[in-house]
């Protein structure tokens, strides 16, 4: 699983949740810091919204989580519970539909591979990689991001959680509140759909970006 792990010196989620329940903002702040990137990405990728709206929705997710902590019984991991709230927030926001006809290619300058654990990592800084690689990565990401926005919502949620965030089927089932078999089906079909969309988009892209025949 690729979910964020607590640093050795930091208390684990259960401890932080217990303290947060008592109103300890510092403890909750640690939880926010730990999962902010994950929640932000999931919200954004699931809902096809711009970064600013995603930030707002991600913040809302944490607010709801904090208010809902008294009802969190610890039957599942905190992060799964949190992502479930995020998922519901996305749905309740209705963002999927409202942006259906105004799909936009996401900004291409927001990411760079391979520096996930680097605290000084600045996603807008592409100077540390070869210009051609950076360009190719950015182009490919742009295509993928656009392709994701064109996927049906159910498929996209499953693919994002599985292939972008690296969650297991069982975890995704918890978050989406569907059976594991449904998750599996959505992932399989979602990938096939994604491949088709990417292929279509790639036909307008440079050859080196295309899925078939190697490339990046």
């Amino acid at each position, binding site marked *: 699983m690729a979910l964020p792990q607590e640093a050795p010196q930091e208390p684990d989620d259960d401890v932080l949740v217990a303290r947060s329940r008592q109103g300890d903002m510092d403890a*909750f702040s640690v939880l*926010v810091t730990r999962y*902010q990137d994950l*929640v*932000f*990405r999931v919200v*954004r990728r699931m809902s096809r919204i711009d*970064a600013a709206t995603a*930030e707002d929705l*991600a*913040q809302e997710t944490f607010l*709801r*989580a*904090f*208010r*809902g902590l*008294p*009802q*969190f019984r610890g*039957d*599942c991991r905190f992060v799964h*519970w949190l992502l*479930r*709230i995020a998922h*519901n*927030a996305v*749905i*309740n926001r*209705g963002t*999927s*539909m409202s942006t*259906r006809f105004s799909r936009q290619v996401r900004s291409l300058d*927001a990411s*760079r*591979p391979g520096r*996930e654990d680097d605290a000084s*990592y600045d*996603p807008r800084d592409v100077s540390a990689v070869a210009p051609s690689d950076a360009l190719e990565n950015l182009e490919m*990401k742009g295509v*993928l991001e656009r392709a994701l926005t064109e996927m049906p*919502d*159910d498929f996209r949620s499953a*693919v994002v959680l599985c*292939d*972008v965030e690296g969650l297991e*089927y069982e975890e995704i*089932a*918890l978050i*989406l*509140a*569907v059976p594991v078999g449904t998750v*599996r089906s959505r992932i*399989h079909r979602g*990938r*096939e759909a994604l*491949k088709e969309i*990417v292929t279509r988009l790639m036909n307008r892209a440079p050859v080196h970006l295309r899925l*078939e025949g190697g*490339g*990046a």
Partner: protein
Amino acid sequence: MISEQDRERIHDYLDGRLAPAQAEAFQRRLASDVELATEVATMERLVSQLTTLREERAPPGFSRDVIARLKTTPRAGPRLPRWLVLALPAAAAILFAAIFAHRMPRPETLVAQDVSRQVPPAARAETSIEKSAATAVEAPDSPAEGSAAGGVAPADDDLAAGPDREAGVNRGEVAEADGASGDDRAGAVAPASNRTAADDRTALEAKGRATLPPPTLVWRVRRAPVAEGAVRPTSGKSDTAAADDRFVPTGDGEIPRELLDAIAAIRTESPGRVVERELDAAGRATFLAQAARDGFVVLQLEGASGAQYKDGSAAEQRKLDDLADLDARGTWRELAHDARPGGGGGGGIDAAKPEGPMRVGTAKSREGAPGPQNPATPGAAPAAGQGAPSVGGGSAAGEKKDKLKPMARGEPGLAKDAAVRILIVYEDDIPPK
């Protein structure tokens, strides 16, 4: 050619979900099957590219902003005991019922009052939708309150939330989107057993002349793309060619062109008044099961001005009550009340009248309904034959055509202030009884 089974296997292989023996066998096949190996490599590359999206970070200051918002938002007070939480709404309902019963006038008067409500500003509708969405989140969204898949949920929560849980918004949003609907329906539609057909007719006629309230909502039941011709309107084979032009393939199926045009017109005239929502799979399944049990709705399109109603018979009323029943179950509120879809079949979109481009109000009985599971019934009046595309009318359409109240001349089909509630359930989705 890669078989479907192999495609499934590719994903299982990539996700490490094949048993060791299966994985080995699959690898052996990859060594000898170039096409399969290419497909695996392509898919592997796609998946690996997706992981690069994981690097996006939350904006700087995110956690600080969250904490700041938390500190400025008052925390909810201590939770009430559960029995009190349950008892309070019940007490309120009893109180409301007592007051309402005391003040309730005759049914037809009630209907007239109901439908003569003035249309609040569009902004009000939007606000109420937003509000209801937010409200819907508070209680059911927390996974600690319920998670069907994870076993986290208490049973009662699952039952209460049911299929809407995944979509979250559906039940709650609808529940408040038109805050007056439930109450109005209680008054507007008295139990069928207490009313006569004449009462029904009076009521429906009164409603037909009135303007319906917002919010304007469009609900669409999601479906997989269908083959051309899989979804067809009321008509039989003779209508097939004409039907092609009347339906627009979308990613989710085929949608009547007129419907899209009407929605587009409303969007243009009153931006923000049309809100689209999709049912999630679970909500859809529940609705379809309900539809199969009651055997009625194939396509329902409700409109405001110009809505046409049928004969107001008891049978029709029963259908209406069925719709209301759906609502009472928290499954489908938007079907419930205002536009009074006709029950026994017929109705549909009638674009033939230039002064009334969209006459609506339809629900159809499954019996005799044409479609993949129930091929076109002789006698079903093809809308095209009338020169008017008609959607959702059933086999009884022809029989009942003469009973439909014609729309008054000059009355707008879908006026600026029209309330539009649309549900499309494709016939081939409804499981057999």
